[in-house]
């Protein structure tokens, strides 16, 4: 019983400690952002590796999600003879929710895990330590550019996801199931609000970008420098990012669209 209590105490203390370290890490990264901004070429390289290289998976997933939305939407709207509203349904689902959320989840799996493994291995192979001994701050030189690159990439990826998804819905709804092309687009244009829907979607993806990259980079930087430690950190990145994205999505949705 006493052991059990002691265990709970130990675990929660460790949790608090880790949260504190993560918060300090975040502050250090934000304060070390100068190099990433001044030498923007460093950031561009990272945008290529976390953003550009993620485009394929984002495009393919977006296409299929859009196609499924088109199909499901059509089947259900047809019951009420409301097929013309398919465009609104597909666009709003993607722009408000699925675009940012699924992009966040895919980003965590594709780019977040890679970031954690990269930083963790740099730590394991003493590259970070050697950089410190060369009087180069790894947070400024390595972490901050990646963080900034992730935050820039995420909304762009989410936008690509939504755009491709809308075409996927068009392809299934208009191309295969015979919804009128004009009403698909005009209904969408008439009912999707720029500031209410699109901007809120972009805000969501920026927040997810901050969360996912913070988690991924922190886990890599804080990893125990062994093969096992890096593998555990990578797993944690994917799990924590997924939970963070879904949890934050609920909070943001409630704030933006909930009227609470």
């Amino acid at each position, binding site marked *: 019983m006493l052991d059990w209590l002691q265990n709970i105490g130990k675990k929660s203390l460790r949790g608090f400690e880790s949260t504190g370290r993560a918060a300090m890490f975040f502050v250090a990264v934000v304060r070390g952002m100068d190099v990433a901004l001044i030498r923007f070429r460093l950031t561009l390289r990272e945008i290529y590796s976390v953003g550009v290289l993620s485009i394929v998976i984002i495009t393919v997933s977006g296409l299929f999600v859009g196609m499924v939305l088109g199909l499901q939407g059509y089947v259900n709207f047809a019951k009420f003879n409301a097929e013309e509203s398919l465009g609104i349904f597909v666009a709003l689902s993607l722009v408000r929710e699925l675009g940012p959320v699924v992009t966040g989840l895919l980003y965590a799996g594709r780019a977040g895990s890679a970031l954690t493994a990269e930083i963790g291995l*740099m730590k394991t*192979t*003493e*590259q970070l*330590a*050697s*950089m*410190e*001994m*060369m*009087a*180069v*701050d790894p947070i400024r*030189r390595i972490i901050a550019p990646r963080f900034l690159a992730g935050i820039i990439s995420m909304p762009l990826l989410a936008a690509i996801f939504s755009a491709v998804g809308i075409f996927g819905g068009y392809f299934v709804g208009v191309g295969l199931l015979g919804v009128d092309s004009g009403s698909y687009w005009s209904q969408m244009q008439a009912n999707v609000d720029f500031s209410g829907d699109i901007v809120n979607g972009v805000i969501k993806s920026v927040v997810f970008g901050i969360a996912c990259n913070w988690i991924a980079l922190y886990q890599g930087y804080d990893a125990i420098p062994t093969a096992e430690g890096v593998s555990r950190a990578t797993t944690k990145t994917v799990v924590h990012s997924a939970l963070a994205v879904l949890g934050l999505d609920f909070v943001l949705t409630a704030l933006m669209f909930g009227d609470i």
Partner: protein
Amino acid sequence: MTDTDIHISSEPLVEIRDLYFSRGELPIFKGLSLDIRRGQVTGFMGPSGTGKTTLLKLVGGQLKPSDGKVYIQGQDVNAISRASLFELRKRMGMLFQSGALLTDLNVYENVAFPLREHTKLPEQIIRDLVLMKLEAVGLRGARKLMPSQLSGGMARRVALARAIVLDPMMIMYDEPFTGLDPITKGTIVTLIKQLNNVLGLTSVIVSHDVEETLSIADYIYVISDGEIVESGTPASLRKSSSEWVQQFLNGYPDGPAPFHYPAPEYIQDLLAGR
């Protein structure tokens, strides 16, 4: 201790005073005090796990001691600001055991890395400096290779070129001879000696390779269990009366440092399984 050594006259660059450090519950250093003298090759020897690498990290300010001081050129490494610590580190090179080259840059860019980070030199001068340092370690022809294409010895030589590219006043070698073939080992030994003499460096070598260290060090500290067991010139060390030092230098399997990890009586242990 033979304090009448010839080299003792030169002033210390690094002074360590009453250093205490522990990892978790395990004490690594218990009141260590020593000097590293300017212009010399100082060797630290001792069995694996005695905290030799930890000592280098304490000197470099990467770890903080639980008590005691580390002075470099009279500056207390743990009391100065992060900016001054970084200024100090620009003048210290460190050679990690693995080389610790940046894996996403090729050999040339690895050596150029400190120059690009700390100076605004034009490309032509960076190129000249990098090629000079690569020439010094004999790898000018390997400048286009990636770290993954290098052998262990080559990686260490590239790391050495990188460590001297800013012309430091001191360079610290962490196990520079471990895991190398005899030829490469000989190359590294010669390089360390040459660099020390030609560039007027102060060198610190942490190693458990007895012959190599004795052959180039001017002064040696033998460390075990967080304390200095013996110190002196290589010649005086060989004549040491300490049984432990003799065992270490000659590699006897048993002696004051026992062959067996502490365990219950052998017979009892075997019978206990029945």
